[in-house]
């Protein structure tokens, strides 16, 4: 069974540019989560989808971040415009039922110059 996949694995952009990260959850998982780890800090929750609906976006840092999950399958996280402090590793996770184990993808390493 394929795990959670994320694309790209790395992205280097300049301040002010736009970047879109993609996450494909484990097949059949309705719950999809985005997390982020910035340098030297712990992994922090960004938001949670159940199918195509946002259940909790309390961790989204500001309105430069937009997450979507059209059709309830893959999800995208867009950062527009990117700022230096957005650099970090963005992880996606998926789970079969709410509250159960979350399975993580390999992450996207974003560097904003």
């Amino acid at each position: 069974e394929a795990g959670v996949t994320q694309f790209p694995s790395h992205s280097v952009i300049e301040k002010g540019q736009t970047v879109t990260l993609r996450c494909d959850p484990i097949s059949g998982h309705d719950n999809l989560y985005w997390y982020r780890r910035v340098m030297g800090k712990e992994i922090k929750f960004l938001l949670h989808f159940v199918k195509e609906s946002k259940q909790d976006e309390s961790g989204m840092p500001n309105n430069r971040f937009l997450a979507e999950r059209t059709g309830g399958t893959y999800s995208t996280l867009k950062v527009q415009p990117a700022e230096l402090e957005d650099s970090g590793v963005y992880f996606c996770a998926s789970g079969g039922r709410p509250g159960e184990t979350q399975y993580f993808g390999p992450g996207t390493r974003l560097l904003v110059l």
Partner: protein
Amino acid sequence: EDQVTQSPEALRLQEGESSSLNCSYTVSGLRGLFWYRQDPGKGPEFLFTLYSAGEEKEKERLKATLTKKESFLHITAPKPEDSATYLCAVQAMDNFNKFYFGSGTKLNVKP
């Protein structure tokens, strides 16, 4: 505020030298505590879930235990391939979809 603290930040062991990693937490009603292993450049890999004080889970050389305030990950006779960062995450009763992570313990096992 919900908080997770892991100690030590880093741990160097000789192969075969057993030790324990600590995860202490403050959360408004614990629903579950999760241990993950993370290798460099990869995402967290699920190891264990613990739900109630006194619960224990084992997998190969690893054993996780839980009390009302902390969890331990015991590593018995570690091997170099156990070298990784071990992450602890908790979920609270009032929002069990949001995991709170600790900063991790980076374990290095030398042959």
